């Protein structure tokens, strides 16, 4: 495995231009989603899904009589412990040499298991195509030394791509800087290896609670509990065996 690569999305410099959304769709030939006015501020995309691998959230707030407009480009977190990858029964999802999580379109049979397994609600099955899709961190591009399409386009370097360790350092510096400027509500999200997904390969600097951006406050990969689940299921299976056996004991 080469160095782990990742995204650091610094929402404090996001201008909500949505270049990331379009650059992503262009590069990955993602179908258009249709025209639907959602009325969610300037967000007419809604959420990450099979046809949206970058999604810019827009949140209008009133803080002490002043208007604040938060914007944040969401993306697949490329978790260290990835639920989607764990539960995929076909091996369509795999971990790449860059420690990113990618769906292999030639393998996926559209079982859909990954969809509810993602604690962030990222991966999704495309209706007409039947397969699961999500951000690949432009696996093809980064393998050739290019940056992912979204990070390439981003005008303000809100989306930064690079070795994860470097990004984490940069994020710590940026956070300290914002705090020193009095931006007390700035926080990092997904950067800690100790969190419920073992740290995200794509992490964020946010200016409010994660839920405000549609992110879970304490995401946990479901498979952390899987050994206990198998244990309980085993016990239950034994109960079935025992129950059947007991039923056939005694009088006819």
């Amino acid at each position, binding site marked *: 495995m080469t160095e782990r690569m990742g995204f650091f999305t610094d929402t404090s*410099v996001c*201008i*909500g*231009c*949505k*270049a990331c*959304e*379009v650059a992503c*769709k*262009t590069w990955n030939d993602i179908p*258009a*989603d*249709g*025209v*639907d*006015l959602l*009325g969610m*501020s*300037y967000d*007419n*995309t809604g959420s990450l899904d099979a046809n949206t691998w970058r999604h810019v959230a827009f949140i*209008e707030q*009133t803080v002490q009589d*002043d*208007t*604040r*407009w*938060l*914007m944040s480009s969401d993306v697949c977190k490329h978790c260290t412990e990835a639920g989607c990858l764990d539960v995929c029964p076909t091996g369509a999802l795999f971990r790449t040499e860059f420690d990113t999580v990618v769906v292999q379109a030639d393998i996926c049979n559209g079982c859909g298991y990954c969809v509810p397994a993602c604690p962030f609600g990222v991966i999704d099955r495309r209706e007409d195509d039947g397969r699961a899709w999500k951000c690949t961190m432009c696996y093809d591009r980064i393998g050739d030394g290019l940056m992912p399409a979204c990070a390439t386009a981003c*005008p*303000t*370097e809100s989306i930064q791509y690079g070795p994860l360790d470097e990004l984490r350092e940069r994020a710590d510096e940026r956070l300290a800087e914002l705090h020193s400027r009095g931006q007390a509500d700035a926080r990092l999200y997904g950067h800690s290896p100790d969190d419920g997904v073992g740290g995200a390969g794509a992490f964020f600097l946010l200016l409010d609670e994660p839920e405000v951006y549609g992110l879970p406050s304490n995401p946990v990969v479901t498979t952390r509990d899987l050994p206990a689940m198998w244990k309980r299921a085993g016990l239950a299976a034994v109960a079935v065996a025992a129950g059947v056996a007991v039923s056939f004991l005694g009088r006819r």
Partner: protein
Amino acid sequence: MAECHPVGFQWVMEAKARGAKIIHVDPRFTRTSAVSDVFVPIRAGSDIAFLGALVNYVLTHGKEFREYVVAYTNAAAIINEDFKDTEDLDGLFSGFDAEKRAYDHSSWAYQGAEAQSGAGDPSDRTGGQQHRATAQAEQHGSGGATVSAKPDEDPTLEHPRCVFQILKRHYARYTPEMVEEVCGVPAAKFLEVAEAITANSGRDRTTALCYAVGWTQHTVGVQYIRTASILQALLGNIGRPGGGILALRGHASIQGSTDIPTLFNILPGYIPMPHARQHLDLASFVAEDAGRTGFWGNMDSYTVSLLKAWWGEHATAGNDFCFDYLPRLTGDHGTYSTVLRQIEGECKGYFLVGENPAVGSANGKLQRLGLANLDWLVVRDLQMIESATFWRNGPEIETGELRTEEIGTEVFFMPAAAHTEKDGSFTNTQRLLQWHHKAVDPPGDARSDLWFYYHLGKLIRHRLRDSTDPRDLPVQHLTWSYVEEGPLGEPSAESVLAEINGTGPDGPLSAYTQLKNDGSTSCGCWIYCGVRADGVNQAARRKPGRDQTWVAPDWGWAWPANRRIIYNRASADPDGNPWSERKKYIWWDSAAGRWVGADVPDFEPTKPPDFEPEEGARAQDALGGADPFIMQTDGKAWLFAPAGLADGPLPAHYEPLESPYSNPLYAQQVNPTLQRYDHPANPYNGSAFPYVVTTYRLTEHHTAGGMSRTLPYLSELQPEFFCEVSPELAEERGLEHLGWATIITSRSAIEARVMVTRRMKPLRMREQVVHQVGLPYHWGPNGLSIGDAANDILGVAADPNVHIQEAKAATCDIIPGRRPRGQALLDLVAEYRRRG
């Protein structure tokens, strides 16, 4: 800026990261506001009051950059005794002719110097309606008006009639309290801005102002920019790095199409189109400049070289270099006047070339009535735009005002080539020419506009080749042979660029200073001379930015002479030393005897700072070594414009033509010289319209939408026309979020989905509350993302200098629900018109 120029905005974000303070003044809270340090919501149409108050703040607090102001501006110049200010005449300047609604600006002149009307004919100086209507500002090219001699000056700036003192008096009433009343900006907020700007200007620091059509689309648009210029000149923010007034323009080559103008009143390089009354021949045309000082003093060379480029061997000294071949102006031939001529039936043929006026120009109905009355229309575009389909799905078809079977216009839709399908250069908003190379062939019948005009020219020349009518001589003699390439016969763009660059006896020219008035040089656009220096396409230079200095002089080519900051002589003090180490840019190297620095000096390279011109010197020789503004006749930045503007030597706040408020500053309500277009289809709003309406763009779309509403990836991001209103206005009018609203003016009514947002804030102007309705104007009936066109409700009234319409501030009413259809729509609008 973040909204419409996101990639340019990266530099603002970078400045912010380095500690720069970002202030955003706008009627609506945009993506720019979101990342700004200070957001100032302002009433649309009140910026001169705001900027004027900044000028007043600078002057009353002694915050001007005194040394810069004394040396580089006309602050010390003493004005004619006859001059009367708006202070004296309650909103008018001296020289106003109420009948003609025009100024005679002779009283605005410098004392001791003759300020000429610029249009050349002294007998015409009274500036009648017709003269005024010839887009006077451009009549002076980029050089401003002529001042033929040095004015009397008071370097102490104490003389009561010196510009500095006039300025002080003129802006004294532009107080923070007045800002509150006119702009709806709290005085404290204004002072925060004033303190930030003045603290960040001077020797060590500079402040930049950026604007877009939010400043130009007003009946006082030119004066908006003028106010900004005064402020920046007072603060010493012109010609220096990090300073300036930066126009953020909206089209890939909108700067280029001004430099090499597809505009009625100028020729390439801002040479005016000749006027029938004044310019009888070449001699009279250049006469006004013959004795002129500054680089415009060479206009004869620029003009003769242009004529040589166009008529080649036929242009000789003996025939005035075919000067007579140029058509003459008699008045305004701007687009709105032309549309009225189409409706009248005089103008019968129309080319639309990558432009969609049925959506993008004010008063869409007026536009479409013009289109429907043509004999023929040629539309060149990539996609089927509304201006090509007005005859089948224009709003007037729905209302019954027009019927398809009764529209006689013959329409040719000629598919255009995209930028990837042709060679050519764009000039970006910072005057930088960048070449784009052809990547693929255009599909099907699509052709470049170069191909179209070249071959159309050939066909027309063929038709006229045997004519003996003298009117056809300019066509017959036109130089029209360009290298044809490939199976399509595409003319070589490079060969056209070569003609633009110009040639002399020794081949390609490398600088406009080589141009001659004797016919020995030819040059299609003098300011572009040097773009093919040494026969090399300098616009195609692509030395990576990271391998150059921050000025990046080896990427593309900027006019003039590859200078990246114009008037950069002002970045050094009068003695030629940098104002400060931090703001070092161009300075005098006395050992080398030349100007040096990061950029190409915008100055004669070896003229020393202490150079004193000889008496009677002309052109650039008449400017001293400390006169940085070399295109001005006196080399100074003009705080006060003694000539050249139709509506006054100093900016004054007037209300928009359509405003629910009376002017708190003067009895004069609107710009007294504003240009009206009186036509039954262009009625102006009366009093029945209580709200302010403004139009704007969104990041996700491009102008009239032909290049964005047709694309799925952009359409899905902003899928539908909507209006933005505050919760308070929504409450007042019963508008529901995501419901429908009908927006009405005396022109028309349109419907939009409602976006209720706190980003739109009611403003308090003392006792009154201002509600503003925001309308992105990208939509029309064609494409994937559709909706009514915001421009349909706007009227046409224009700035008297440049004929730009007032699209950024008008009045409207807004009611819940969808608009009526058919005749009922007309009835609704008529009802509002009746009400006043």
